[in-house]
């Protein structure tokens, strides 16, 4: 295994893609988790150095877009929910943009928009309308929720819009490498994948993933997706401890940091202080960004 990791390290430093067979070997045989993390960290540092971005997100349920307070500290307003019609989607985005007062607004999953539109042309038109209403990016493309992911992604690209991040709802049983290869091919042909979040969005509480599984899949994603700029972890979904450790296994961006400072259960540090402290404790340099990936001034 040490030989394989040595080869991978050389390929990382040379900016070469890691062959699928090598990735499969790493997934199935890498008992030395720390060594795998070290190679993924090399790949991450080659691209980002010690720079670690994070975004404070205000999630707004679709039905509450008119009245839920939007914390001014948010770097991204994210509309969540499934609109009933294209018209509802556009209206909700317009309202969110109006209330966000300049904070970038992202909204919806690409799968939901695709289902609503019913075809590539209609999807392109819908995304064009959403962009004209002020949408900064489609919030999420869940790679395992599409009948034809490439068609849907290309419709967004052709509409001149962006997708904030690619995610996965649930990894298939067995190796994650085939799915990662799909994402790699998608990026090679479309160039739209600017961020991939490899930790599954759907958590099975009866059979939760383990810490090993989580950081291995983060490391594999970093190594497999050599031309995807960012590997992302979700602060809320996986918790600060795992998210922080994932930064040592190839992740470079933290999504879902709470935008307001109120916590219902006892005194906690303000989320901003907490994320800064966690990133620095991992010997990395925090940089706050917004929903358009622009750096926010301190």
């Amino acid at each position: 295994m040490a030989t394989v990791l040595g080869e991978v390290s050389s390929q990382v430093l040379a900016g070469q893609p890691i062959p699928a067979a090598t990735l499969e070997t790493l997934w199935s045989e890498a008992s030395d988790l720390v060594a795998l993390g070290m190679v993924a960290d090399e790949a991450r540092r080659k691209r980002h150095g010690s720079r670690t971005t994070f975004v404070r997100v205000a999630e707004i349920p679709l039905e509450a877009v008119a009245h839920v307070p939007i914390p001014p500290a948010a770097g991204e307003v994210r509309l969540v929910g499934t609109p009933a019609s294209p018209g509802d989607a556009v209206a909700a985005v317009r309202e969110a943009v109006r209330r966000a007062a300049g904070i970038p607004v992202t909204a919806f999953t690409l799968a939901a928009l695709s289902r609503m539109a019913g075809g590539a042309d209609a999807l392109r038109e819908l995304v064009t309308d959403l962009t004209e209403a002020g949408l900064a990016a489609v919030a999420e493309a869940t790679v395992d929720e599409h009948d034809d992911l490439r068609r849907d992604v290309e419709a967004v690209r052709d509409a001149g819009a962006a997708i904030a991040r690619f995610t996965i709802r649930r990894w298939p049983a067995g190796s994650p490498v085939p799915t990662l290869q799909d994402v790699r091919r998608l990026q090679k042909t479309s160039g739209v994948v600017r961020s991939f979040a490899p930790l599954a969005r759907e958590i099975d509480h009866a059979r939760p993933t383990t810490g090993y599984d989580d950081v291995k899949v983060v490391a594999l994603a970093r190594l497999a997706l050599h031309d995807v700029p960012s590997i992302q972890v979700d602060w809320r979904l996986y918790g600060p401890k795992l998210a922080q450790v994932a930064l040592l296994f190839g992740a470079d961006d933290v999504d879902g940091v709470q935008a307001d400072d109120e916590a219902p259960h006892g005194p906690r540090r303000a989320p901003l202080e907490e994320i800064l402290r966690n990133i620095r404790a991992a010997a990395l340099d925090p940089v706050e960004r917004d929903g358009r990936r622009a750096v926010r001034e301190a």
Partner: protein
Amino acid sequence: MSVHAIAEKVAAGGRVGFDEACLLYREAPTHLLGTLADAIRARRHPERIVTYIIDRNVNYTNVCVARCSFCAFYRHVGSPEGYVLSFEEIFQKIDETIEVGGEQLLLQGGHNPDLPLEWYEDLFRAVKARYPRFRLHALSPPEVVHLSRLAKLPVEAVIDRLITAGLDSIPGGGAEILVDRVRKLLNCYNKATADEWIGVMRAAHRAGLRTTATMMYGTVETPEERLEHMFRVRGLQDETGGFTAFIAWSYQPEHTELSGVEATGVEYLRTLATARIVLDNVDNLQSSWVTQGGKVGQLSLAFGANDMGSVMIEENVVRAAGASYCMDEIEIVTNIENAGFAPRRRNMHYDLLGEPIFRERAIPRRFGLAVAKDAGTALMPDELSGYAARSRSAREQRRAPGRPAQPS
């Protein structure tokens, strides 16, 4: 010396000095610390076994005069929320522990001035009479110091009496950071100084008991003081060889007087790995999943830990300060196997007891830890009236109508 040179020395099996350990802890990349610690773990435990114990953390009382500022569990003497477990309640907890394959209680509690040494002796004797093979891993060093003061007896005499009554081993709780500057700041200097903690462990080891050592970090101490703690443990281990394991955990700040924030997951892994490097004479390092959660708890196995600690069944102290993680035996075993190790049950001495018990017989799943007192049960059992009380409130309570007079 450079980090690189120290790393080479460690990798070659060399022992680090204090300054070298400080440099590693402060400056070595986390991956390097993990690599060094994992290699030591592999040398010391080449069979790739990761152990765990089925036992129960029972806190016999929450009444405490120590008033440590980092503790969210204690209640003042006379508090309406103060409790003492009855012997029957403890027996019931033992029955439940045995039902799920456990064979030991980790029994610790507050420094309750109204529980004399005789109460502990009677409890231990009663447990041993009823459950002859059941083990009592009980009374951390500050509790022994407290009993020594209460009974006006030397520590050695208290330990002897407790062993005679049934004490099997002593848990390493109450160590916090073994540096008196820190202990004064945390208001735990008076419960036991660093020397007193070490002194109790030395006496226990000389009396033939095995003990564990712990470290609660992340309050007011410096990184150097964490290292000083580890070196004190290493020094005593060189002298007696009595520690079976070292367990580090992060301070849990919620609901405490001290407040503050918890150290991060990466700091935990760095601290654990450094402990594995420094404590070259301690066989076993536990993962603290109860403070770090299952995921980072499992990742500990790549950073020097070879033991997943306890299935625990019940926990009150850490939970009072905000941590609420729970893993039953199935989940602990799943995590061990997923990390590529073979799970084995053990006892406090780290003797291997066998394969997971749930593979031998049906064990009900548990998704939450039990608490000390069931709702509706009396906070102070009647049997206390048979014991001398120091505090006025307890003396008055035990003199209440209908209760027998307490011994003078």
